[in-house]
């Protein structure tokens, strides 16, 4: 049981990565490919945040307040903030890339009147 808990996050990250990768390669519809790309991105975010998680740790905001006792800060008491920072900006950038990807899809649809990969290929030939 302990080994399942300690590895389950990584298994799910691999599984999601495979789902996203397969959708990007095999799906015929361009919007489905974009969804696959987004799933791929979230899989990587799961990987990073899982690395930053610590057992018995709390959120990375230091307990403070007026009149609070200045206690020594225990590192093991707070989750690792560095992966959180990197992934926070990655999520916001992912909405930017999603916007560009959907804009390209709309541009393709404007010209070929289709979002299906094989139909676009037929028109290209």
């Amino acid at each position, binding site marked *: 049981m302990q080994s399942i808990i300690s590895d*389950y996050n990584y298994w799910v990250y691999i599984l999601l990565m*495979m789902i996203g990768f397969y959708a990007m390669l095999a799906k015929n519809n361009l*919007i489905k490919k974009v969804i696959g790309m987004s799933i791929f991105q979230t899989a990587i975010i799961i990987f990073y*945040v899982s690395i930053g998680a610590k057992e018995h740790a709390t959120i990375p905001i230091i307990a403070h307040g007026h009149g609070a006792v200045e206690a020594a800060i225990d590192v093991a008491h707070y*989750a690792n903030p*560095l992966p959180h920072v990197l992934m926070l900006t990655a999520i916001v950038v992912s*909405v930017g890339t999603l*916007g560009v990807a959907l*804009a390209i899809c709309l541009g393709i649809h404007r010209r070929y009147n289709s*979002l299906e990969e094989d139909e676009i290929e037929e028109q290209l030939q």
Partner: protein
Amino acid sequence: MIWQLDLSILTLIVICAFATIMVKDLLSAAIIFGAYSFLMCLLWTEMGAVDVAFTEASVGAGVSTVLFIAAIYQTTRKVGVRKSGRLLTKAVALVATLITGLVLLIAEADFPGFANPFTPASLHLSPYYITQTLHDTNVPNIVTSVLADYRGFDTMFETAVIFTAGLAVIAILRRFKKEDRCDIPGPYVISEAHPDTIIRFIARQLVPFIQLFALYVVAHGHHSPGGGFQGGVILGASFILLAISFDFKMVLGIMSERLNILLGNIGVLLYAGIGFLCLLLGANFLDYSILSKVLPATDTIMARSHGMLGIEIGVAIAVMAIVISIYFNIVSRGKYDKGL
């Protein structure tokens, strides 16, 4: 951390991912993907990454879903019927996917166990941030201080990336002429919509509170989860809500294209400008402690805190403008005439 929650949320996430890929209707896929993002948000909270959860809730579950729906509105919700010739493509893709998964699974054997506090990632750099943040910058939210101060240079270019994405969407989609050579008539109709009084009333009542909350998220990011990125996205979402529930033109009257692009520029310039101000005062780029020379009644520690607030405001303005601009361009196909 509660491992029962962890296991069940992760299982639900995998089910949602499968459903999103398998479902035959694009609108359903977009909605299931929204549910997937909300589950992700729960997972981040469960792992203690509250700032990431906040971002995922506003960006992943909120704006991404709206962008998908806008794109489907402009194209079609139907997935085409499959032709027999794609069997080879699928087989190749399956083999490639399985090989990738196998390689990752072999690598996974070397990973440190989940939730182990002594992983290499948690031993070298992050203890400095955790122990010194309050002492260096007087900001208790470590994520904000690392984002805006210790790694401020990184975040500046992240903002620039979002700005560039906004420019790219405008460059791809924006059409200024009425007639376009390769244009096709009318968007796909999802449903015959009539203006709904209840939705309009509720949206009108909600928008001021949403915007107030967004300002709180920006200003209070030092002490609680939140900050410029989240607040900016929520501000942008309030305008998108108005555009969906009311008229597209009405929102364009409040937030014209010219003003929107101007705001995007001002946001990025504010960030870089604070960096240059630090340079002019004689310190390194984005070293806010020198700002105590110009800010009244601040020591070098509080100056870093105030500097962070300044760049968070810049990020919020830029992100708000870019989110609105991307949505407007996608939903009107770059013609700014009518929307969802």
